[in-house]
């Protein structure tokens, strides 16, 4: 199965929206909709990602459309950048493949009161310290150990459990999606093997596209929203991208294995085995959701501990407590998750199971789930770019509630396979190229750096342009990396 160009239908609806008609494949229950502009749509046609959008439309109970954000790329089962909402009242299903192996992979961003000029002259030493202190890379274990009852409490209470451990503040919890804890998590639904994989990895970055970056705000687009977040041009921030580590991968793998027989049992016909699913209202569906929520809670605790270690490193480096550096968490978002949420479908308010596979929640101002601080501006949406280019902070907009079940994009989206990226980087010194752009990169191995080099990704600014113009989320600030830690 190699990469082939998508030759199916893709009809332009408006400047930023394309449609795969419901009659493209028999078995599709709704149409496919892809957010993109003329420039991105050509890249999107280059592989089978649109086919995957059509395949997701087979899921029982799917509402309105199988949706894809402009950072869509070819995944396994679901495309990356996909959003699908199913209604349990109509036999709607939950699919572990619609969340992915890295359950609650997500991003958080912390501001500081440091300015670019305070940090730039010392960036090399700062990155050396961060590289030393932040556990990263394959098989790396952290300084924290959670087993037995402690791990169960962590799985049940997520980042909120860390309040009692002294590794989180109330403000951190307030500024985390779901307040860092999903209700309905059941540690007993998580296998002993998954728990074993999780006991020494909470507070570790992992490898692949996960990173910690020191960034500088380069441009402000919405001054009021930026002020509310404590951002101005030149503000130094830290962005952290990681997920639920081996525990989450195991929860997903266990679930897919347990669901092997479910499609036959519930009479569900699927075009790809990776889309395996069970009705939300079935013992299998409920068990997966309980385990997935526990893994999601683990991921929030993981990012909280990564941030805590970052604060400690900054405090040591700058010789003052992190509180006086005002290292406040702006927000933390999940971009691989399934959640029961209330949305308007036609003239009804329905509680649907929203799968976001490489997509970010994007709730607008006034939504009850948006923290008080952001009630007037909308939920912060954090879009990591790649090592050499910008990352973005946006805020959720009302149109996301009307069109995409409160969702927007999650990142740049790959254009080169890892293999191709390495070929592309052959003979080049990626760390030196980054250094020439003023970015200090620390990585365990060169191959890891090559796989993730900037040319491997779409230009995140093009992706952000589309969601901004389509009204799903609004630009607040663009940030530029000055230091990168990768696994």
């Amino acid at each position, binding site marked *: *199965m*190699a*990469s082939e160009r998508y030759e199916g239908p893709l009809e332009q609806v408006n400047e930023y929206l394309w449609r795969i008609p419901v009659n493209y494949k028999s078995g599709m229950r709704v149409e496919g909709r892809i957010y993109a502009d003329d420039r991105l749509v050509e890249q999107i046609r280059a*592989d089978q*990602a649109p086919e995957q959008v059509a395949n997701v439309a087979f899921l029982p109970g799917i509402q309105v459309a199988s949706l894809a954000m402009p950072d869509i*790329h*070819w*995944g*396994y*089962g679901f495309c*990356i950048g996909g959003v699908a909402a199913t209604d349990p009242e109509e036999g709607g299903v939950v699919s572990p*493949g619609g969340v*992915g*192996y*890295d359950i609650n992979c997500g991003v958080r961003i912390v501001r500081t009161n440091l300015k670019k000029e305070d940090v730039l002259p010392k960036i090399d030493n700062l990155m050396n310290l961060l590289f030393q202190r932040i556990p990263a*890379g*394959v*098989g790396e274990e952290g300084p924290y150990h959670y087993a037995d009852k402690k791990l169960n409490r962590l799985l049940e209470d997520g980042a909120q459990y860390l309040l009692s451990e002294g590794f989180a503040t109330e403000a951190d919890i307030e500024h985390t999606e779901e307040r860092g804890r999903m209700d309905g998590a059941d540690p007993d639904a998580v296998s002993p*093997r998954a728990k*074993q*994989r999780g006991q020494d990895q909470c507070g570790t970055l*992992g*490898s*692949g596209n996960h990173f910690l970056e020191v960034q500088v705000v380069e441009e402000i687009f919405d001054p009021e929203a930026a002020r509310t977040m404590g951002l101005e041009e030149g503000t130094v921030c830290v962005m952290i991208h990681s997920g639920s580590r*081996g525990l989450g*991968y*195991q929860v*997903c*793998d266990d679930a*897919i*294995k347990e669901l*092997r027989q479910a499609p036959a049992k519930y009479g569900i016909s699927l075009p*790809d*085995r*990776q889309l*395996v699913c069970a009705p939300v209202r079935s013992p299998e569906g409920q068990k997966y959701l309980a385990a997935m929520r526990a893994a999601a809670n683990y991921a929030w605790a993981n990012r909280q501990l990564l941030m805590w270690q970052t604060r400690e490193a900054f405090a040591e480096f700058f010789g003052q407590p992190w509180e006086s550096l005002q290292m406040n968490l702006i927000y933390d978002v999940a971009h691989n998750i399934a959640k029961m949420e209330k949305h308007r479908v036609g003239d009804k308010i329905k509680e649907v199971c929203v799968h976001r596979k490489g997509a970010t929640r994007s709730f607008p101002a006034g939504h009850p789930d948006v923290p008080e601080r952001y009630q007037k501006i909308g939920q912060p949406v954090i879009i990591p770019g790649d090592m050499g280019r910008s990352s973005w902070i946006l805020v959720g907009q009302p149109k996301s509630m009307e069109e995409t079940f409160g969702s927007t994009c999650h990142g740049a989206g*790959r*254009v*080169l*396979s*890892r*293999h*191709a990226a390495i070929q592309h980087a052959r003979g080049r010194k990626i760390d030196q190229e980054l250094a020439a752009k003023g970015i200090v990169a620390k990585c*365990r*191995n060169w*191959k*890891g750096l090559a*796989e993730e080099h900037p040319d491997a990704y779409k230009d995140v600014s093009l992706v952000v342009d589309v969601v901004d113009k389509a009204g799903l989320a609004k630009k607040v600030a663009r940030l530029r990396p000055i230091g990168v830690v990768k*696994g």
Partner: protein
Amino acid sequence: MYETFDHTADLGLRIQAETLERLFEEAAEALSSVLVVNWEQVRPVLQKSVRLEASNWEDLLHDWLSELLVLFALQKLVGRRFEVRFDHQNLPVGGPPEAMGRMRGPTIQLPQEVLEATIWGDMLDPARYQPGPEVKAVTYHGLRLEKQPTGWLAEVILDL
């Protein structure tokens, strides 16, 4: 014989072998060579046995490679040499004794393919072995295992 193929965010493995046993062994070698860059230098100094069951060959291949991933994650074991044997068994389909007692006719049997394997390898020592990219999972997307005129072919996509 194995090779890797491109899949945008992930990595595919294509394996060909004359026998099914060799196909599973080569698949294990292919995965190990992704996990450790200088895999050919891994010393076969530790031994581990594995037994797995699945209702079809594709699932068994998935479970076998997933088991190797877990051994790598939990015990830091990198396999260098693999010996795979197969067996076939019929599992009686069970239920609560009171229900089973009321059942008439022959017991329902579920055919199971059984894999028994011995793995020889070493612990991942970063001073000696260079880890490759993190493999999150063995996916079912595009999973193929089929008989061909000259032997067997399998394709597996890894989530990186």
